[in-house]
């Protein structure tokens, strides 16, 4: 017997360079949930956008070399980004801003020329150079460092928005920001049904795997979107901080964790880790689905097998 997904309320809109979606178990609450998510993402963009000259993170860079007290949103984002860097030994590094710019991703993706002359990758400056006091929210950013907190900021925002909306509206919530999903509150009958696939805009189940999620976070990092060419070579938005070159080996990595932030941290690190990723994820007990560039699917740490996975 097959069952259709339970009816829920849904609002989706473009935001922070991707698609923002909020699902609620009470359809009547969808409008209010959407408004709350919009408010959160507007504030996040104004704080963390790498491409807005008026963002707090850009203004922080203008004061490099001096201690600066940041606001609550940036404090949370920096704390999360540095925690992710520490827990992955720098595989996820917020100082990759210059590395991204060096390979051509120096403006909104829509404005990045699809092709251009050859570029030279530049390693990340190194997250450990950032001075950060979580008690006073004071940052000391060395000169020359450009921050890119996109991945962890998005996941943290999903966690926070889901929790806030569930608490305020008293219903079950999923917040999806691109490939990053955060679950809070009660789940609908049958659980939250998620299609895990290469591209977050896909709705065709033939292209992915259906799973049921009831808590925490699920994140997918991949190399099939946000692509461009320089010097005849393909580039994408996940770079190895150690080299500044685009990570290769995995098309997508999807990870389930206690929070969307932890799921995103692990999925991004796994893309960078290449062949070592399955063992790294298994060692941490993080259920994951990894799709190699040749389409081979690997499932680790209890991720459900759809009959195609290599274990």
């Amino acid at each position, binding site marked *: 017997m097959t069952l259709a997904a339970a009816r829920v309320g849904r609002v989706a809109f473009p935001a922070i360079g991707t698609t923002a979606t909020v699902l609620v178990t009470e359809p009547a609450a969808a409008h209010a949930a959407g408004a709350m998510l919009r408010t959160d993402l507007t504030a996040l963009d104004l704080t963390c956008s790498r491409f807005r000259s008026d963002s707090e993170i850009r203004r922080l860079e203008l004061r490099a070399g001096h201690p600066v007290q940041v606001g609550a949103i940036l404090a949370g984002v920096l704390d999360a980004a*540095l925690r992710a860097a520490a827990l992955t030994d720098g595989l996820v590094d917020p100082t990759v801003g210059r590395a991204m710019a060096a390979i051509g991703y120096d403006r909104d993706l829509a404005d990045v020329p699809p092709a251009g002359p050859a570029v030279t990758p530049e390693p990340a400056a190194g997250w450990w150079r950032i001075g950060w006091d979580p008690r006073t929210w004071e940052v000391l950013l060395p000169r020359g460092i450009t921050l890119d907190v996109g991945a962890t900021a998005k996941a943290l925002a999903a966690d926070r928005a889901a929790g806030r909306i569930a608490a305020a509206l008293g219903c079950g919530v999923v917040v999806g920001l691109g*490939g990053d999903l955060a679950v809070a509150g009660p789940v609908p009958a049958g659980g939250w049904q998620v299609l895990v696939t290469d*591209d977050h805009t896909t709705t065709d189940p033939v292209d992915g795997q259906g799973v049921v999620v009831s808590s925490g976070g699920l994140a997918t990092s991949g190399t099939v979107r946000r692509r461009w060419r320089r010097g005849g070579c393909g580039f994408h938005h996940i770079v190895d901080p150690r080299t500044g070159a685009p990570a290769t080996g995995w098309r997508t990595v999807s990870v389930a964790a206690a929070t969307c932030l932890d799921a995103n941290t692990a999925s991004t690190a796994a893309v960078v880790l290449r062949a070592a990723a399955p063992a790294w994820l298994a060692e941490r007990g993080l259920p994951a689905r990894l799709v190699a560039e040749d389409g081979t699917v690997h499932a680790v740490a209890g991720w459900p097998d759809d009959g195609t996975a290599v274990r």
Partner: protein
Amino acid sequence: VEHIRRSRLSARDDGLRRAGRITGWATVGSGVAMVAIASVLAGGQAQAASDPQPPSAPAPSSAPNTTPKTTPGTGTGLQPPTTVPHASHGRGSHITSGSS
């Protein structure tokens, strides 16, 4: 023998550095994000703890002690989900997780 001894000492030092870094994050660095995540996991009950603090009254250094060390997502490592995803046998899906 000297080479092996140096190699072992180097490995030990690497381990100590890593342990020190993680311990540091556990005892000192569980600041804003960790409190915020705790509020998410508590279904918003701890929302007040993650509210912005005025610059003149920075987050108290005792804040990490208010967060149970066993709370998922706030420990020293990446935390697995409390419930592992299972296969869906339905036709539809509520949402998609993919590259963005």
